[in-house]
């Protein structure tokens, strides 16, 4: 009987040898959450497909096949047949290859837009939160202006401003839309950090100002922003798709992009609904994956879940 207690005691001391950081514990929790696993699988599959798309796709996105084209009628678009698993699109191109290759574009747009938005938002949020005062007021009023316009409307306006619609304008428009969210979120948690005891303690210790902001405030404030980034990634993909759908993206008809494909498919909805169905499902599934991942990340990081 004594051994149990002695064992416990020993375990505790042995346990002392390996400290577990908060990030480590959050990761542990993440691994136990089924939603996180589903999200990770969806996102992982999407990224994998996007990366391997050129190798996986049997055909080129822009190539039109006579075998498919000759069966094109105003009231029929050929379905699945040997060599073309999902059949043809409205121009006699291989729909399956286009679906695969489009994932690459979607990932590219989503990731880039989010990363740019995140970077700009973080700079604004960090500066505003760390300095406070009039700097904060000024930056936040600017952000408020951006926030006061509905996000899609803002993206459309920005994209429409561009002389020639292109992939880049879509990315920039979507990025700008996500800036205010990141900036506000980070500023809020930076302000909370500024008031926190441990930052006061570091100040009292004589830690230099830059270190204070970058080592103590930012790492503790960034959790919600990272979570938001995964959620924003989903939103960015949807926004980019919407812009393409509205014809504000790259106008090149040969380009494969889910939003664009969805837009083009609307004229053929009664002829072949699958042309709209697959891109829509793909967008939804990917957005869902990122959202699930983001939500479970939020749960894992949230201090309330901590003991």
């Amino acid at each position, binding site marked *: *009987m004594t051994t*149990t207690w002695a064992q416990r005691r020993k375990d505790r001391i042995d346990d002392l040898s390996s400290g577990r950081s908060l990030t480590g514990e959050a990761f542990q929790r993440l691994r136990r959450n089924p939603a996180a696993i589903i999200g990770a699988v969806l996102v992982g599959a999407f990224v994998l497909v996007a990366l391997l798309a050129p190798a996986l796709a049997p055909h080129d996105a822009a190539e039109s096949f006579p075998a498919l084209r000759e069966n094109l009628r105003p009231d029929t678009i050929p379905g699945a047949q040997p060599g073309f698993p999902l059949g043809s699109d409205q121009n006699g191109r291989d729909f399956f290859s286009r679906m695969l290759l489009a994932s690459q574009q979607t990932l590219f747009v989503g990731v880039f837009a989010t990363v740019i938005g995140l970077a700009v938002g973080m700079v604004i949020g960090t500066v505003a939160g760390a300095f406070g005062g009039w700097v904060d007021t000024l930056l936040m009023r600017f952000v408020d202006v951006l926030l006061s316009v509905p996000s899609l409307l803002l993206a459309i306006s920005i994209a429409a401003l561009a002389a020639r619609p292109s992939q880049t304008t879509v990315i920039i428009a979507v990025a700008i839309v996500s800036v205010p969210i990141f900036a506000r979120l980070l500023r809020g948690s930076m302000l909370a950090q500024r008031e926190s005891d441990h930052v006061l303690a570091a100040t009292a210790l004589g830690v230099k100002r830059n270190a204070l902001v970058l080592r103590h405030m930012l790492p503790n404030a960034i959790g919600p922003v990272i979570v938001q980034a995964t959620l924003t990634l989903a939103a960015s993909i949807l926004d980019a798709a919407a812009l393409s759908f509205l014809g504000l993206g790259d106008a090149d008809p040969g380009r494969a992009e889910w939003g664009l494909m969805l837009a083009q498919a609307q004229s053929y909805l009664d002829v072949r609904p699958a042309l709209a169905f697959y891109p829509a499902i793909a967008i939804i599934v990917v957005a869902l994956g990122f959202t699930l991942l983001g939500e479970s990340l939020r749960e894992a990081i949230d201090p309330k879940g901590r003991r």
Partner: protein
Amino acid sequence: MTAARSTTSLRAETGPLLSVRDLRVAFQRKGEPETVAVDGVSFDVAPGQVVGLVGESGCGKSVTSMAIMRLLPSRGVRVSGSVVMDGVDLLTLSDQQMRERRGRDLSMVFQDPLTSLNPVIPIGLQVTEVLRRHRGMGKETARKAAAELLERVGIPDPRRRLDSYPHQLSGGMRQRALIAIALACQPRLLIADEPTTALDVTIQAQILELLRELVRETGAALIMITHDLGVVAGLCETVNVLYAGRIVERAQRHRLFSTPRHPYTHGLLRSIPRLDAPPGEELQAIRGSVVDNVPWTHACAFAPRCPRSLEACLEVTPQDETSGGRLLRCHNPVPASAE
């Protein structure tokens, strides 16, 4: 303004008002082993008696009170044992029946008056609500009674205060308001869970004095739950010392404080700085902390921290033994003549 007076005069010599027997509360969380917060606690409260439950955080004192009030969530919590009041086991009542008793027969005052008052409803309404519900008063009568209650608990300008919101009152006033709500239906048992912990000492003294007066006047019994031995010393007739979910010592307060027998009680009393002791002398600290506890199942939970622990303490669970009005759960208690 005088010191604590015994409330025995008002007590009818009948059976206990509340009888807690072998109360056990276990929390079960998914994927984790069951944690036993309260592990077979038994005690009686006679009508008009003031009983103290003392212990550190995690000793199960608050969970005990929540279990008596049936305020624990039903999911993930296992409560066993019995809590008999008026010959009825409260633990077997339906939720509806229990709701009727709460506030009327037994009532509770919490530690944090700000979070236990509804922040968006005026104080007056929160008092009258109870009065109208349990005592069937009309709107006007209830308001009058509420003002009287607030006055009784020492809130100045009670009529105006009826329309105040909790955040407009100070901590002490909020606690008074909470006590007024708890006493609205003249319950025979009041449970106060750390009612003064969030308050300043001078305000604490006011609230303790108020509780003393109220117990004396209304004849209600009081279960005082606190970590502060000083509070207990001036207020409670019988003191139960809890450690890791079990009562380790129980005695009448004068005896408990003059000759603490359990090493935990003894150590606790010697480890706190006292106002009346010469300053600067080293405190006799109890080593370790609650995380060092071992389960009661095959040992004494306090053994790893105990200066008097024997071999047996880590092998055999000590049983509670009552002798001369003192309950003790220890293999090697401090000799009675130690102090």
